[in-house]
Protein backbone atom coordinates (compact mmCIF):
# COMPACT_ATOMS: atom_id res chain seq x y z
CA UNK A 1 0.00 0.00 0.00
CA UNK A 2 2.78 2.44 0.91
CA UNK A 3 5.89 2.49 -1.25
CA UNK A 4 8.69 4.85 -0.35
CA UNK A 5 11.67 5.03 -2.70
CA UNK A 6 14.91 6.91 -2.11
CA UNK A 7 13.16 9.67 -0.30
CA UNK A 8 15.31 12.73 0.35
CA UNK A 9 14.39 15.98 2.11
CA UNK A 10 16.76 18.88 2.45
CA UNK A 11 16.09 21.96 4.54
CA UNK A 12 18.62 24.41 3.16
CA UNK A 13 21.99 22.73 3.50
CA UNK A 14 20.68 20.22 6.02
CA UNK A 15 19.62 16.79 4.85
CA UNK A 16 16.83 15.75 7.22
CA UNK A 17 15.91 12.56 5.34
CA UNK A 18 18.53 10.74 3.35
CA UNK A 19 17.48 8.19 0.76
CA UNK A 20 14.88 6.34 2.78
CA UNK A 21 13.14 3.37 1.13
CA UNK A 22 10.62 0.89 2.47
CA UNK A 23 7.22 -0.59 1.76
CA UNK A 24 4.25 -1.30 3.98
CA UNK A 25 1.62 -3.82 2.91
CA UNK A 26 -1.95 -4.25 4.02
CA UNK A 27 -2.04 -6.10 7.34
CA UNK A 28 1.33 -4.76 8.34
CA UNK A 29 2.14 -2.41 11.19
CA UNK A 30 5.45 -0.72 10.66
CA UNK A 31 7.13 0.86 13.67
CA UNK A 32 9.26 3.84 12.84
CA UNK A 33 11.95 4.22 15.47
CA UNK A 34 14.64 6.76 15.95
CA UNK A 35 16.06 9.36 18.32
CA UNK A 36 14.69 12.90 18.30
CA UNK A 37 15.50 14.75 15.10
CA UNK A 38 16.14 11.54 13.19
CA UNK A 39 13.71 12.52 10.45
CA UNK A 40 10.62 10.48 11.39
CA UNK A 41 8.14 13.33 11.24
CA UNK A 42 9.66 14.71 8.06
CA UNK A 43 9.31 11.32 6.37
CA UNK A 44 5.70 11.03 7.49
CA UNK A 45 4.93 14.53 6.24
CA UNK A 46 6.16 13.51 2.82
CA UNK A 47 4.11 10.32 2.88
CA UNK A 48 0.96 12.26 3.70
CA UNK A 49 1.68 14.91 1.07
CA UNK A 50 2.13 17.78 3.51
CA UNK A 51 5.61 18.59 2.25
CA UNK A 52 7.07 17.66 -1.12
CA UNK A 53 10.27 15.59 -1.14
CA UNK A 54 13.49 17.07 -2.48
CA UNK A 55 13.84 13.88 -4.47
CA UNK A 56 12.50 10.36 -4.39
CA UNK A 57 9.02 9.00 -4.62
CA UNK A 58 6.08 8.09 -2.43
CA UNK A 59 3.16 6.10 -3.69
CA UNK A 60 0.06 5.15 -1.72
CA UNK A 61 -2.34 2.57 -3.10
CA UNK A 62 -0.66 2.96 -6.49
CA UNK A 63 -1.06 6.77 -6.57
CA UNK A 64 2.07 8.86 -6.73
CA UNK A 65 1.84 11.57 -4.07
CA UNK A 66 3.27 14.33 -6.23
CA UNK A 67 1.49 13.46 -9.47
CA UNK A 68 -1.82 12.28 -8.11
CA UNK A 69 -2.17 13.66 -4.59
CA UNK A 70 -5.95 13.68 -4.15
CA UNK A 71 -6.64 9.94 -4.69
CA UNK A 72 -3.61 9.13 -2.53
CA UNK A 73 -4.72 11.46 0.26
CA UNK A 74 -8.18 9.91 0.21
CA UNK A 75 -6.67 6.59 1.29
CA UNK A 76 -4.67 8.05 4.14
CA UNK A 77 -5.61 8.90 7.70
CA UNK A 78 -3.03 11.07 9.44
CA UNK A 79 -2.30 11.92 13.04
CA UNK A 80 0.37 14.66 13.07
CA UNK A 81 2.94 14.79 15.84
CA UNK A 82 1.36 17.51 17.97
CA UNK A 83 -2.18 16.13 17.46
CA UNK A 84 -3.54 19.52 16.38
CA UNK A 85 -7.28 20.20 16.66
CA UNK A 86 -9.54 23.11 15.79
CA UNK A 87 -10.00 24.21 19.36
CA UNK A 88 -12.89 26.60 18.74
CA UNK A 89 -15.13 23.67 17.79
CA UNK A 90 -16.84 20.95 19.77
CA UNK A 91 -15.46 17.43 19.41
CA UNK A 92 -18.56 16.56 17.41
CA UNK A 93 -18.19 19.63 15.21
CA UNK A 94 -14.53 18.91 14.55
CA UNK A 95 -15.14 15.25 13.66
CA UNK A 96 -18.04 16.24 11.47
CA UNK A 97 -15.81 18.76 9.68
CA UNK A 98 -13.16 16.08 9.12
CA UNK A 99 -15.82 13.72 7.76
CA UNK A 100 -17.10 16.35 5.35
CA UNK A 101 -13.57 17.06 4.17
CA UNK A 102 -13.38 13.34 3.46
CA UNK A 103 -16.42 13.63 1.24
CA UNK A 104 -18.93 12.02 3.59
CA UNK A 105 -22.47 13.31 3.85
CA UNK A 106 -25.58 13.14 5.99
CA UNK A 107 -26.29 9.96 7.91
CA UNK A 108 -22.86 8.45 7.14
CA UNK A 109 -21.21 11.27 9.07
CA UNK A 110 -23.26 10.62 12.20
CA UNK A 111 -22.54 6.90 12.02
CA UNK A 112 -18.83 7.52 11.52
CA UNK A 113 -18.72 9.89 14.49
CA UNK A 114 -20.42 7.33 16.70
CA UNK A 115 -17.99 4.66 15.54
CA UNK A 116 -14.79 6.63 16.16
CA UNK A 117 -16.12 8.17 19.37
CA UNK A 118 -16.60 4.73 20.84
CA UNK A 119 -13.25 3.46 19.52
CA UNK A 120 -11.43 6.43 21.03
CA UNK A 121 -13.53 6.74 24.21
CA UNK A 122 -14.89 10.16 23.34
CA UNK A 123 -18.60 9.55 23.85
CA UNK A 124 -18.66 11.55 27.07
CA UNK A 125 -17.12 14.68 25.56
CA UNK A 126 -18.67 14.80 22.10
CA UNK A 127 -20.44 18.07 22.77
CA UNK A 128 -17.65 19.66 24.73
CA UNK A 129 -15.51 22.36 23.18
CA UNK A 130 -12.07 21.04 22.20
CA UNK A 131 -10.22 23.77 24.10
CA UNK A 132 -11.74 22.60 27.38
CA UNK A 133 -10.38 19.06 26.96
CA UNK A 134 -7.37 17.61 28.73
CA UNK A 135 -4.35 16.73 26.64
CA UNK A 136 -5.20 13.03 26.49
CA UNK A 137 -8.70 13.72 25.19
CA UNK A 138 -7.45 16.22 22.63
CA UNK A 139 -4.95 13.65 21.45
CA UNK A 140 -7.64 11.02 21.06
CA UNK A 141 -9.89 13.53 19.30
CA UNK A 142 -7.21 14.05 16.68
CA UNK A 143 -6.72 10.29 16.49
CA UNK A 144 -10.47 9.89 15.94
CA UNK A 145 -10.26 12.45 13.15
CA UNK A 146 -7.62 10.34 11.43
CA UNK A 147 -9.80 7.22 11.30
CA UNK A 148 -13.15 8.89 10.61
CA UNK A 149 -13.19 7.59 7.01
CA UNK A 150 -11.93 4.13 7.98
CA UNK A 151 -8.81 4.64 5.82
CA UNK A 152 -6.80 1.87 4.26
CA UNK A 153 -3.57 3.56 5.24
CA UNK A 154 -2.83 5.10 8.61
CA UNK A 155 0.11 7.35 9.34
CA UNK A 156 0.48 8.02 13.06
CA UNK A 157 3.21 10.29 14.36
CA UNK A 158 3.83 9.35 17.99
CA UNK A 159 0.25 8.24 18.61
CA UNK A 160 0.76 7.44 22.30
CA UNK A 161 2.72 10.56 23.19
CA UNK A 162 1.23 12.39 26.15
CA UNK A 163 -1.18 9.64 27.17
CA UNK A 164 -1.30 8.01 30.58
CA UNK A 165 -0.35 4.30 30.83
CA UNK A 166 -3.94 3.07 30.53
CA UNK A 167 -4.62 5.22 27.52
CA UNK A 168 -1.33 4.14 25.96
CA UNK A 169 -2.44 0.55 26.37
CA UNK A 170 -5.84 1.22 24.82
CA UNK A 171 -4.38 3.05 21.85
CA UNK A 172 -1.88 0.23 21.25
CA UNK A 173 -4.68 -2.32 21.28
CA UNK A 174 -6.64 -0.16 18.88
CA UNK A 175 -3.71 0.13 16.47
CA UNK A 176 -3.12 -3.58 16.67
CA UNK A 177 -6.73 -4.39 15.89
CA UNK A 178 -6.86 -1.96 12.99
CA UNK A 179 -3.58 -3.29 11.68
CA UNK A 180 -5.24 -6.52 10.60
CA UNK A 181 -6.91 -4.83 7.66
CA UNK A 182 -4.87 -1.69 7.09
CA UNK A 183 -1.36 -0.63 6.29
CA UNK A 184 -0.15 1.30 9.30
CA UNK A 185 3.03 3.21 9.92
CA UNK A 186 3.63 4.77 13.30
CA UNK A 187 6.58 6.49 14.85
CA UNK A 188 7.61 6.20 18.44
CA UNK A 189 10.60 6.27 20.68
CA UNK A 190 9.07 3.83 23.12
CA UNK A 191 10.66 0.48 22.40
CA UNK A 192 8.21 -1.72 24.27
CA UNK A 193 5.56 -0.28 22.00
CA UNK A 194 7.32 -1.67 18.96
CA UNK A 195 7.45 -5.13 20.48
CA UNK A 196 3.84 -4.98 21.57
CA UNK A 197 2.35 -3.71 18.34
CA UNK A 198 4.55 -3.87 15.25
CA UNK A 199 4.94 -6.59 12.71
CA UNK A 200 8.05 -4.84 11.45
CA UNK A 201 10.28 -2.02 12.57
CA UNK A 202 12.63 0.44 10.97
CA UNK A 203 15.27 2.31 12.88
CA UNK A 204 16.24 5.63 11.40
CA UNK A 205 19.09 7.81 12.54
CA UNK A 206 20.07 11.21 11.17
CA UNK A 207 17.87 10.68 8.17
CA UNK A 208 19.20 7.25 7.24
CA UNK A 209 17.61 3.83 7.77
CA UNK A 210 20.02 1.85 9.92
CA UNK A 211 17.92 -1.26 10.56
CA UNK A 212 14.82 -2.84 9.06
CA UNK A 213 13.26 -6.12 10.24
CA UNK A 214 10.76 -7.81 12.52
CA UNK A 215 11.13 -6.97 16.20
CA UNK A 216 12.55 -10.48 16.73
CA UNK A 217 15.14 -10.02 13.99
CA UNK A 218 16.17 -6.70 15.42
CA UNK A 219 16.45 -8.10 18.90
CA UNK A 220 18.66 -10.88 17.56
CA UNK A 221 21.20 -8.21 16.68
CA UNK A 222 21.59 -7.50 20.35
CA UNK A 223 24.90 -8.49 21.98
CA UNK A 224 23.27 -10.86 24.42
CA UNK A 225 20.89 -12.43 21.94
CA UNK A 226 21.06 -16.23 22.14
CA UNK A 227 22.81 -16.25 25.50
CA UNK A 228 21.70 -19.25 27.56
CA UNK A 229 21.36 -18.89 31.33
CA UNK A 230 21.01 -21.95 33.55
CA UNK A 231 20.75 -22.64 37.26
CA UNK A 232 21.87 -26.07 38.32
CA UNK A 233 22.09 -27.87 41.61
CA UNK A 234 23.98 -31.08 42.36
CA UNK A 235 27.29 -30.33 40.67
CA UNK A 236 30.51 -28.46 41.32
CA UNK A 237 31.59 -25.27 39.61
CA UNK A 238 34.55 -26.96 37.94
CA UNK A 239 32.57 -29.94 36.71
CA UNK A 240 29.84 -27.73 35.30
CA UNK A 241 32.34 -25.43 33.66
CA UNK A 242 34.23 -28.34 32.12
CA UNK A 243 31.13 -30.00 30.78
CA UNK A 244 29.58 -26.84 29.31
CA UNK A 245 32.79 -25.60 27.73
CA UNK A 246 33.07 -28.96 26.02
CA UNK A 247 29.77 -28.52 24.21
CA UNK A 248 30.11 -28.23 20.41
CA UNK A 249 27.79 -25.24 20.21
CA UNK A 250 29.11 -23.28 23.18
CA UNK A 251 31.33 -20.22 23.00
CA UNK A 252 32.35 -18.31 26.10
CA UNK A 253 31.13 -19.82 29.37
CA UNK A 254 30.90 -18.13 32.74
CA UNK A 255 30.07 -20.14 35.83
CA UNK A 256 29.65 -19.09 39.44
CA UNK A 257 28.14 -20.56 42.52
CA UNK A 258 25.18 -18.88 44.04
CA UNK A 259 24.27 -20.30 47.44
CA UNK A 260 23.38 -23.96 47.03
CA UNK A 261 23.13 -23.78 43.26
CA UNK A 262 25.40 -22.89 40.36
CA UNK A 263 24.51 -20.40 37.65
CA UNK A 264 26.07 -20.31 34.20
CA UNK A 265 25.93 -17.98 31.23
CA UNK A 266 26.79 -19.69 27.97
CA UNK A 267 27.33 -17.67 24.82
CA UNK A 268 26.49 -19.60 21.63
CA UNK A 269 29.42 -20.05 19.25
CA UNK A 270 27.25 -18.48 16.60
CA UNK A 271 23.97 -16.71 16.96
CA UNK A 272 22.14 -19.22 14.78
CA UNK A 273 23.11 -21.98 17.18
CA UNK A 274 21.26 -20.53 20.13
CA UNK A 275 18.38 -23.01 19.94
CA UNK A 276 20.65 -26.01 19.69
CA UNK A 277 22.79 -24.74 22.52
CA UNK A 278 19.86 -24.59 24.91
CA UNK A 279 18.95 -28.18 24.07
CA UNK A 280 22.56 -29.32 24.47
CA UNK A 281 22.84 -27.66 27.85
CA UNK A 282 19.66 -29.40 28.97
CA UNK A 283 20.95 -32.78 27.76
CA UNK A 284 24.33 -32.25 29.42
CA UNK A 285 22.65 -31.56 32.74
CA UNK A 286 20.51 -34.65 32.68
CA UNK A 287 23.46 -36.85 31.57
CA UNK A 288 25.53 -35.60 34.47
CA UNK A 289 22.70 -36.10 36.92
CA UNK A 290 22.39 -32.39 37.77
CA UNK A 291 19.10 -30.88 38.64
CA UNK A 292 18.12 -28.16 36.19
CA UNK A 293 16.36 -25.46 38.16
CA UNK A 294 16.14 -22.90 35.43
CA UNK A 295 17.04 -22.61 31.74
CA UNK A 296 16.49 -19.51 29.74
CA UNK A 297 17.55 -18.22 26.34
CA UNK A 298 17.96 -14.45 25.99
CA UNK A 299 16.10 -13.00 23.04
CA UNK A 300 18.13 -9.88 23.10
CA UNK A 301 16.80 -6.47 23.88
CA UNK A 302 15.57 -3.87 21.50
CA UNK A 303 16.82 -0.97 23.57
CA UNK A 304 20.31 -2.46 23.47
CA UNK A 305 20.16 -2.71 19.70
CA UNK A 306 18.71 0.75 19.44
CA UNK A 307 21.47 2.21 21.55
CA UNK A 308 24.26 0.33 19.86
CA UNK A 309 23.09 1.49 16.44
CA UNK A 310 22.23 5.09 17.24
CA UNK A 311 24.29 6.04 20.31
CA UNK A 312 27.66 6.75 18.69
CA UNK A 313 26.05 9.38 16.51
CA UNK A 314 24.11 10.91 19.35
CA UNK A 315 27.32 11.29 21.31
CA UNK A 316 29.07 12.81 18.33
CA UNK A 317 26.22 15.22 17.84
CA UNK A 318 26.29 16.60 21.37
CA UNK A 319 30.05 17.11 21.29
Amino acid at each position, binding site marked *: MIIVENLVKE*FGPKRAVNSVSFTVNRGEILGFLGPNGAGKSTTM*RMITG*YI*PPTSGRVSVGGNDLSENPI*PAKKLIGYLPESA*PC*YSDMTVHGFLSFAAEMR*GMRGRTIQDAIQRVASLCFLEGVLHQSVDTLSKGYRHRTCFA*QSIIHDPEVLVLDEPTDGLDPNQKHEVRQLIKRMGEKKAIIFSTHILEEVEAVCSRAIIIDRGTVVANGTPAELKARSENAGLVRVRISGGTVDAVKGKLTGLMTAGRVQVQSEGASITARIQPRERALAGELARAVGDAASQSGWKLEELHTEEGRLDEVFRSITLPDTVKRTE
Partner: protein
Amino acid sequence: MSSDSSRHIWTIAKRELSGYFNSPVAYVFIVIFLLLNGFFTFMLGGFFELGEASLSKPFFSWHPWLYLFLVPAAGMRLWSEERRVGTLELLLTYPIAPWEAILGKFIASWIFLAIALGLTFPVVLTVGYLGSPDLGAILAGYLGSFLLAGAYLAVTVMTSALTRNQVVSFILSVVICFFLILAGWEPVTNLLVRWAPDTIVNLVASFSVMPHFGNFQRGVVDLRDLLFFASVIVFSLFGTGVILRGLRGA
Protein backbone atom coordinates in the same frame (compact mmCIF):
# COMPACT_ATOMS: atom_id res chain seq x y z
CA MET B 1 -15.62 24.21 -10.83
CA SER B 2 -16.48 20.63 -9.93
CA SER B 3 -19.14 19.89 -7.35
CA ASP B 4 -16.40 18.38 -5.17
CA SER B 5 -14.53 21.67 -5.19
CA SER B 6 -17.55 23.75 -4.31
CA ARG B 7 -18.38 21.33 -1.50
CA HIS B 8 -14.86 21.61 -0.09
CA ILE B 9 -14.94 25.38 -0.33
CA TRP B 10 -18.29 25.56 1.36
CA THR B 11 -17.29 23.11 4.13
CA ILE B 12 -14.26 25.25 4.94
CA ALA B 13 -16.21 28.51 4.68
CA LYS B 14 -18.90 27.13 6.97
CA ARG B 15 -16.29 26.17 9.57
CA GLU B 16 -14.72 29.61 9.49
CA LEU B 17 -18.06 31.38 9.68
CA SER B 18 -19.22 29.36 12.65
CA GLY B 19 -15.83 30.13 14.15
CA TYR B 20 -16.65 33.84 13.89
CA PHE B 21 -20.08 33.58 15.39
CA ASN B 22 -19.13 31.11 18.11
CA SER B 23 -16.85 33.65 19.65
CA PRO B 24 -17.80 36.96 21.23
CA VAL B 25 -15.12 38.66 19.14
CA ALA B 26 -17.43 38.67 16.12
CA TYR B 27 -20.17 40.52 17.97
CA VAL B 28 -17.72 42.96 19.47
CA PHE B 29 -16.34 43.54 15.99
CA ILE B 30 -19.77 44.24 14.51
CA VAL B 31 -20.72 46.58 17.34
CA ILE B 32 -17.47 48.53 16.98
CA PHE B 33 -17.93 48.69 13.22
CA LEU B 34 -21.44 50.07 13.56
CA LEU B 35 -20.53 52.51 16.31
CA LEU B 36 -17.60 53.88 14.32
CA ASN B 37 -19.75 54.16 11.22
CA GLY B 38 -22.37 56.07 13.17
CA PHE B 39 -19.78 58.28 14.78
CA PHE B 40 -18.06 59.16 11.50
CA THR B 41 -21.27 59.64 9.58
CA PHE B 42 -23.28 61.69 12.03
CA MET B 43 -20.56 63.46 14.01
CA LEU B 44 -17.50 63.94 11.82
CA GLY B 45 -19.25 63.57 8.49
CA GLY B 46 -21.70 66.31 9.34
CA PHE B 47 -24.53 64.27 7.87
CA PHE B 48 -27.24 66.61 9.08
CA GLU B 49 -25.42 69.84 8.23
CA LEU B 50 -24.74 68.81 4.64
CA GLY B 51 -28.41 68.97 3.92
CA GLU B 52 -28.26 66.63 0.95
CA ALA B 53 -29.83 63.19 0.66
CA SER B 54 -26.60 61.40 -0.25
CA LEU B 55 -24.34 58.94 1.55
CA SER B 56 -21.30 59.53 -0.62
CA LYS B 57 -19.46 62.04 1.58
CA PRO B 58 -20.73 61.45 5.09
CA PHE B 59 -20.84 57.66 4.99
CA PHE B 60 -18.83 55.92 2.27
CA SER B 61 -15.88 58.31 2.24
CA TRP B 62 -14.80 56.97 5.64
CA HIS B 63 -14.77 53.36 4.64
CA PRO B 64 -11.21 53.14 3.24
CA TRP B 65 -9.97 54.38 6.63
CA LEU B 66 -12.37 52.39 8.73
CA TYR B 67 -11.55 49.18 6.90
CA LEU B 68 -7.86 49.91 7.17
CA PHE B 69 -7.94 48.58 10.74
CA LEU B 70 -11.11 46.56 10.93
CA VAL B 71 -10.57 44.30 7.92
CA PRO B 72 -7.05 43.20 8.95
CA ALA B 73 -8.45 42.59 12.44
CA ALA B 74 -11.17 40.37 11.01
CA GLY B 75 -8.83 38.35 8.77
CA MET B 76 -5.50 38.23 10.60
CA ARG B 77 -6.10 34.84 12.16
CA LEU B 78 -7.23 33.01 9.01
CA TRP B 79 -3.92 31.29 8.25
CA SER B 80 -1.63 32.39 11.07
CA GLU B 81 -3.77 30.55 13.59
CA GLU B 82 -3.69 27.38 11.49
CA ARG B 83 0.07 27.65 11.40
CA ARG B 84 0.43 28.37 15.11
CA VAL B 85 -1.80 25.52 16.25
CA GLY B 86 -0.60 23.11 13.58
CA THR B 87 -4.00 22.41 12.05
CA LEU B 88 -2.52 23.53 8.73
CA GLU B 89 -1.00 20.07 8.59
CA LEU B 90 -4.45 18.51 8.87
CA LEU B 91 -6.10 20.86 6.43
CA LEU B 92 -3.49 20.40 3.72
CA THR B 93 -3.39 16.62 4.05
CA TYR B 94 -7.13 16.29 3.53
CA PRO B 95 -7.97 15.32 -0.05
CA ILE B 96 -8.57 18.87 -1.24
CA ALA B 97 -6.66 21.36 -3.36
CA PRO B 98 -5.00 24.20 -1.42
CA TRP B 99 -6.80 26.86 -3.49
CA GLU B 100 -10.12 25.45 -2.27
CA ALA B 101 -9.04 26.12 1.31
CA ILE B 102 -7.79 29.61 0.45
CA LEU B 103 -11.03 30.48 -1.29
CA GLY B 104 -13.17 28.95 1.46
CA LYS B 105 -11.51 31.04 4.13
CA PHE B 106 -11.65 34.21 2.04
CA ILE B 107 -15.34 33.75 1.27
CA ALA B 108 -16.21 33.12 4.91
CA SER B 109 -14.54 36.33 6.02
CA TRP B 110 -16.01 38.27 3.18
CA ILE B 111 -19.49 37.07 4.11
CA PHE B 112 -18.81 38.13 7.67
CA LEU B 113 -17.75 41.61 6.52
CA ALA B 114 -20.79 41.78 4.24
CA ILE B 115 -23.02 41.04 7.21
CA ALA B 116 -21.40 43.83 9.19
CA LEU B 117 -21.76 46.19 6.23
CA GLY B 118 -25.36 45.11 5.70
CA LEU B 119 -26.16 46.03 9.29
CA THR B 120 -25.50 49.68 8.49
CA PHE B 121 -28.89 49.74 6.72
CA PRO B 122 -30.40 52.17 9.27
CA VAL B 123 -28.23 54.86 7.67
CA VAL B 124 -30.03 54.24 4.39
CA LEU B 125 -33.38 54.34 6.14
CA THR B 126 -32.46 57.63 7.78
CA VAL B 127 -31.45 59.27 4.56
CA GLY B 128 -34.56 57.91 2.89
CA TYR B 129 -36.71 59.33 5.65
CA LEU B 130 -35.13 62.77 5.46
CA GLY B 131 -35.09 63.17 1.72
CA SER B 132 -35.28 61.34 -1.57
CA PRO B 133 -31.84 59.85 -2.20
CA ASP B 134 -30.60 58.29 -5.42
CA LEU B 135 -30.98 54.62 -4.50
CA GLY B 136 -28.84 53.53 -7.44
CA ALA B 137 -25.95 55.64 -6.17
CA ILE B 138 -26.34 54.18 -2.70
CA LEU B 139 -26.30 50.64 -4.10
CA ALA B 140 -23.17 51.49 -6.10
CA GLY B 141 -21.60 52.83 -2.93
CA TYR B 142 -22.38 49.63 -1.08
CA LEU B 143 -20.99 47.54 -3.93
CA GLY B 144 -17.80 49.60 -3.89
CA SER B 145 -17.51 49.31 -0.14
CA PHE B 146 -18.00 45.54 -0.33
CA LEU B 147 -15.30 45.25 -3.02
CA LEU B 148 -12.98 47.49 -1.05
CA ALA B 149 -13.40 45.26 1.99
CA GLY B 150 -12.72 42.24 -0.25
CA ALA B 151 -9.50 43.76 -1.55
CA TYR B 152 -8.19 44.56 1.94
CA LEU B 153 -9.29 41.13 3.08
CA ALA B 154 -7.43 39.37 0.29
CA VAL B 155 -4.29 41.26 1.31
CA THR B 156 -4.86 40.18 4.90
CA VAL B 157 -5.35 36.56 3.85
CA MET B 158 -1.94 36.77 2.19
CA THR B 159 -0.16 38.39 5.13
CA SER B 160 -1.71 35.91 7.55
CA ALA B 161 -0.18 33.07 5.55
CA LEU B 162 3.23 34.69 6.01
CA THR B 163 3.44 34.32 9.77
CA ARG B 164 2.17 32.30 12.68
CA ASN B 165 1.76 35.50 14.69
CA GLN B 166 -1.62 37.22 14.30
CA VAL B 167 -0.28 40.58 15.40
CA VAL B 168 2.46 40.54 12.80
CA SER B 169 -0.08 39.54 10.20
CA PHE B 170 -2.31 42.45 11.28
CA ILE B 171 0.49 45.01 11.10
CA LEU B 172 1.75 43.82 7.71
CA SER B 173 -1.73 43.98 6.32
CA VAL B 174 -2.39 47.48 7.68
CA VAL B 175 0.87 48.70 6.15
CA ILE B 176 0.08 47.27 2.72
CA CYS B 177 -3.49 48.55 2.75
CA PHE B 178 -2.26 51.94 3.89
CA PHE B 179 -0.09 52.11 0.78
CA LEU B 180 -3.07 51.08 -1.31
CA ILE B 181 -4.82 54.15 0.07
CA LEU B 182 -1.96 56.66 0.05
CA ALA B 183 -0.83 56.06 -3.52
CA GLY B 184 -4.04 57.60 -4.76
CA TRP B 185 -5.25 59.73 -1.88
CA GLU B 186 -5.73 63.29 -3.06
CA PRO B 187 -3.62 65.08 -0.44
CA VAL B 188 -0.73 62.77 -1.37
CA THR B 189 -1.20 62.98 -5.13
CA ASN B 190 -1.45 66.75 -4.86
CA LEU B 191 1.93 66.71 -3.18
CA LEU B 192 3.39 64.28 -5.69
CA VAL B 193 2.51 66.32 -8.78
CA ARG B 194 5.02 68.91 -7.62
CA TRP B 195 7.85 66.38 -7.93
CA ALA B 196 6.82 64.06 -10.69
CA PRO B 197 5.14 64.29 -14.09
CA ASP B 198 1.39 63.76 -14.21
CA THR B 199 1.60 60.46 -16.04
CA ILE B 200 3.74 58.90 -13.30
CA VAL B 201 1.49 60.21 -10.55
CA ASN B 202 -1.56 58.86 -12.36
CA LEU B 203 0.12 55.53 -12.90
CA VAL B 204 0.95 55.21 -9.21
CA ALA B 205 -2.53 56.37 -8.28
CA SER B 206 -4.11 53.76 -10.51
CA PHE B 207 -2.68 51.10 -8.18
CA SER B 208 -4.50 52.71 -5.30
CA VAL B 209 -7.97 51.76 -4.16
CA MET B 210 -8.93 55.42 -3.82
CA PRO B 211 -9.75 56.49 -7.40
CA HIS B 212 -11.54 53.18 -8.03
CA PHE B 213 -13.51 53.34 -4.83
CA GLY B 214 -14.16 57.02 -5.49
CA ASN B 215 -16.14 56.19 -8.62
CA PHE B 216 -18.39 53.76 -6.77
CA GLN B 217 -18.75 56.30 -3.99
CA ARG B 218 -20.06 58.84 -6.51
CA GLY B 219 -22.51 56.24 -7.78
CA VAL B 220 -20.59 55.27 -10.91
CA VAL B 221 -20.12 51.56 -11.62
CA ASP B 222 -17.33 51.18 -14.16
CA LEU B 223 -16.10 47.85 -15.48
CA ARG B 224 -12.48 49.01 -15.05
CA ASP B 225 -13.03 49.61 -11.35
CA LEU B 226 -14.65 46.22 -10.97
CA LEU B 227 -11.66 44.69 -12.73
CA PHE B 228 -9.28 46.56 -10.47
CA PHE B 229 -10.77 45.10 -7.30
CA ALA B 230 -11.08 41.69 -8.86
CA SER B 231 -7.40 41.72 -9.79
CA VAL B 232 -6.26 42.81 -6.32
CA ILE B 233 -8.27 39.93 -4.88
CA VAL B 234 -7.10 37.34 -7.39
CA PHE B 235 -3.48 38.48 -7.14
CA SER B 236 -3.47 38.35 -3.33
CA LEU B 237 -5.17 34.97 -3.14
CA PHE B 238 -2.78 33.62 -5.73
CA GLY B 239 0.09 35.04 -3.66
CA THR B 240 -1.34 33.21 -0.66
CA GLY B 241 -1.14 29.95 -2.60
CA VAL B 242 2.49 30.62 -3.48
CA ILE B 243 3.34 31.43 0.15
CA LEU B 244 1.65 28.30 1.44
CA ARG B 245 3.50 26.16 -1.07
CA GLY B 246 6.77 27.86 -0.17
CA LEU B 247 6.18 27.15 3.51
CA ARG B 248 5.90 23.47 2.90
CA GLY B 249 8.73 23.28 0.43
CA ALA B 250 11.23 25.26 2.46
